[in-house]
């Protein structure tokens, strides 16, 4: 101490700081904790097996009513059961909590689904899962859930009847083909936990008045309220990850992974995988494939999730539409479509992670239709694009003389010049937009590719204040969701919602403005067909109609690289048992975890 006291103040501070940093460095020395397992804190001190799945993003909320994004969905799929579930091998939807059901057609055209539930299922707090819980889950989600309201609304939640603990009936407007799939998404939550946040209204649904409008969503997820009946139960969560513990009393099997950790915001997925910080990557980059291919300890798949990427055209002819009116000319839209070499775009802009195609239903869907087999298929042909533009009267140059080069004009002096927006957080779309602009310029169409902040872009597209924009659409397994993007006058997601004659946050997704009564009629016809052979020709016809009218130009179906540590884990199955299926999606993660084996 004498020495320290003898030191000058500045030297003393420096010495203290140096010692502090040295201590920190010493503390950090030593070997890394082993990947795959970690010494547990249990009484026996046994190693416990963790399965750590890395995500590029974090959660929004793990609260089942406020959940919104992919990570949230994974957590909820692992904690809660659903009435129906995907069969990993076949890709079909099979019974889960529901063991049996019948569908009765009613005189008024509606249908009644009579469900029988398993009687041996319990929540992790020991309470049995009953028909009351199912009814409550559907009723509360329909009006309130960020993620599942559309799914729960597939049945008329005012007409749910609970017969006894294991029987209930649901009424739907019609026998829609997608009811089972929608019901397979809605988590069954315990009524005795969540009931306190809702009010049973006069209209027969669980809802909330203004005073408590957000109360259920404000519940912080914790062990005492995240009670489910799924394969895993809540362990803990912080700002870096969420860990779930195996539910050893699960009624439908078990998993080798005693803990499932969802690791958030992994910016270096490949490094984290290779260094053993995660066991699997929900999505890796195209550039990671080469490294993964050359390493026998890792395997990857390129899965198709049914998403497609496209250029959307504003062809709406209403007064409030602010898009360039020239895009209402079908030949112009078709000409742009024919300029585009989809294979080249997928290869160059999307790292070849995808299947170039032009129909609106993905190759992994049972309703896929290869548009190349259509007699009206046109394909990439710039010469044909020029012919279309000439036919539509775009034969002039900027000075009014016959067109020779540059941008084409029509007789009114209107140039073929359009803005193409893409979301500023999507560099791949940005690359695609650049290629599209270059391709179109060759036939005299000027495209100005512009990066726009995501939410601002949505504001523009919702109010028809755009010419063209890049968009990815995701899909359900059933084609109803993709097909109703273009429904206008009728249907669950019809777009024609107006307030005082002007569009106010519309109720549907058809922001192209393209509408066709025949298409709408076909939609209504096919959506109640459960027989695929009967339904397929109608779906095929609808795909052709969209292709012919070109309200969008589909570029291809996107692929996702999903990778895992094959030295530690084996037994993964791609959804549907085919080489294009994903291995990790929220609906299948529970079943996947019951199948895989830990190899030590």
């Amino acid at each position, binding site marked *: 101490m004498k020495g320290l006291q003898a030191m*000058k103040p*500045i030297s003393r501070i*420096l010495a203290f*700081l*140096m010692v*502090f*940093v040295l201590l*920190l*460095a010493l*503390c950090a020395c030593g070997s*890394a*904790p082993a990947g795959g397992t*970690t010494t547990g*804190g249990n009484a026996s001190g046994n190693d*416990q097996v*963790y399965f*750590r799945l890395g995500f590029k993003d*974090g959660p*929004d*909320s793990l*609260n089942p009513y*406020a959940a*919104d994004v992919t990570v949230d969905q994974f957590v909820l799929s692992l904690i809660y059961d659903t009435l129906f579930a995907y069969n990993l091998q076949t890709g079909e939807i099979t019974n889960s909590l529901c063991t049996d059901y019948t569908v009765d057609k009613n005189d008024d055209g509606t249908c009644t689904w009579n469900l029988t539930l398993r009687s041996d299922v319990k929540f992790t707090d020991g309470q049995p899962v009953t028909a009351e819980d199912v009814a409550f889950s559907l009723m509360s989600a329909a009006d309130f*859930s*960020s*993620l599942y*309201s*559309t799914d729960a609304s597939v049945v008329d939640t005012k007409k749910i009847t609970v017969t006894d603990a294991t029987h209930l009936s649901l009424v739907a407007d019609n026998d829609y083909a997608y009811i089972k799939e929608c019901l397979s998404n809605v988590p069954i939550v315990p009524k005795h936990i969540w009931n306190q946040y809702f009010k049973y209204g006069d209209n027969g649904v669980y809802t909330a008045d*203004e005073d408590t*409008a*957000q109360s259920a969503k*404000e519940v912080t997820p914790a062990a005492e309220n995240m009670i489910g009946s799924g394969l895993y139960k809540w362990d803990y969560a*912080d*700002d*870096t*990850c969420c*860990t779930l513990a195996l539910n050893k009393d699960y009624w439908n099997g078990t998993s080798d992974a005693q*803990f499932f*950790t969802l*690791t958030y*915001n992994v*910016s*270096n997925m*490949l*490094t*984290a995988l*290779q*260094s053993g*910080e995660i066991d699997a990557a929900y999505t890796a980059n195209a550039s990671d494939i080469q490294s993964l291919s050359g390493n026998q300890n890792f395997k990857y798949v390129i899965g198709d999730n049914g998403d497609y990427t496209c250029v959307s055209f504003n062809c709406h002819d209403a007064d409030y539409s602010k898009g360039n009116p020239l895009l209402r000319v079908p030949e112009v839209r078709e000409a742009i479509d024919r300029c585009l070499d989809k294979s080249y775009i997928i290869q160059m802009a999307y790292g070849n992670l995808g299947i170039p195609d032009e129909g609106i239903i993905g190759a992994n869907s049972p309703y896929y239709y290869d548009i190349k087999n259509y007699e009206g298929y046109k394909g990439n042909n710039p010469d044909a694009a020029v012919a279309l533009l000439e036919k539509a009267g775009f034969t002039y140059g900027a000075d009014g003389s016959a067109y020779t080069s540059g941008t084409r004009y029509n007789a009114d002096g209107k140039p073929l010049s359009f803005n193409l927006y893409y979301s500023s*957080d999507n560099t791949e779309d940005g690359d695609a937009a650049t290629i599209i602009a270059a391709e179109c310029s060759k036939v005299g169409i000027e495209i100005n590719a512009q990066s726009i902040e995501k*939410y*601002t872009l*949505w*504001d523009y597209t*919702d109010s028809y204040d755009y010419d063209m924009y890049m968009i990815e659409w995701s899909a359900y397994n059933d084609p109803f969701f993709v097909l109703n993007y273009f429904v206008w006058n009728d249907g669950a997601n019809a777009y024609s*919602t107006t*307030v005082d004659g002007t569009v*106010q*946050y519309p*109720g549907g997704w058809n922001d192209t403005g393209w509408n066709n009564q025949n298409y709408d009629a076909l939609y209504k016809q096919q959506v109640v067909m459960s027989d695929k052979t009967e339904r397929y020709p109608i779906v095929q016809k609808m795909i052709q109609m969209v292709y012919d009218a070109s309200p969008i130009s589909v570029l291809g179906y996107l692929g996702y690289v999903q990778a895992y540590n094959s030295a530690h884990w084996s037994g993964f199955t791609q959804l549907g048992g085919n080489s294009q299926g994903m291995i990790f999606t929220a609906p299948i993660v529970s079943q996947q975890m019951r199948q895989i084996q830990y190899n030590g």
Partner: protein
Amino acid sequence: MAGAFIPPSFCIVPKEVTNLSQAIRIAKKIFYLLITIFFVLVFNFVLFRLLPGSISTKMAHTAHANATALANLDKYYGLNQPMVQQFLTYFTKLLHLDLGNTFASYGGGTDVWDVMASRIGPTVVLLGLAEIIAFILGTVFGVIAGWKRGKVIDKTLLTSSLTFYAMPTFWLSMMLILIFCTKANLLPSMGMYTTGFRKEIVGAAAYYKDVARHLILPLACMSLGLAGEYTLTMRSTMMDVLTEDYMTTARAKGFKEGYVLRKHALPNAMLPMVTLICMNLGFAIGGAITLEQMFSWPGIGALTYTAIANRDYTLLQGIFLLTTVSTIVANFLADILYGFIDPRIKNS
């Protein structure tokens, strides 16, 4: 004699007068501090509402909400009120330290203070330690470089400092990850601790050791850049000080070079460093967005990224308020500190 250090014993101002003037000076500084903070509040409030787009758009796309639902949301969050009324509500709540609830992040409706509180610790640990390391390295290297001006060691330190100072954080992060994680597999590349290494499971010692391992790379990345900045500043001021007359006088008195450096050069050269360090400490509370994103470090910087991505007005307001107020307070502390370490200011 500009910048000369006058030892307090040479001052002839009475102590009572000195204390009074010091108190007045501090009171004035506090007054200006409060005014600045008020304008920051106004600016923070207005700025985020001038951004294009609305939170309703996000809700419409995720929850597929109809016009009625969106109107109810606007009402719930008070977004349907006039701007002045919104500001008054915001300001009144702020006086009660109520920053409101998040708009969109964390499912919406979570207390902003709660969200930020869990992130402040990791950021302060990371950036606070980085500041300490950078201060030590920057001071030592800066003194050496200034002292040995033109020599090989000066050129080496100058080049390396400039390199690290100019190097973008994301690039340095990538290189460190590539070398120490991907190739050598020596250190963790992400997060604050290994999965399962919770304090209550593995014990405090193992937990902190694990956290320390996770700290090394982000800490190295941050402190190298800061150390470069501090070295350059220290070297520059050191060279100025070394040419002062009082340095020649000290040497002429026969003091040893080391003594001259420590007693006469270092205290004067430290003055600009105090401002720089205080300002950087203020910014440190706001986190380092790129660094925390690259290393998946759960701090305020990463939270800012999330808040921007979700256009979460209230959360962004909270973060920016924290950042700006901490910077202003740090600047204030630097001013006060100056008064104590530089007698010319204290006695003015």
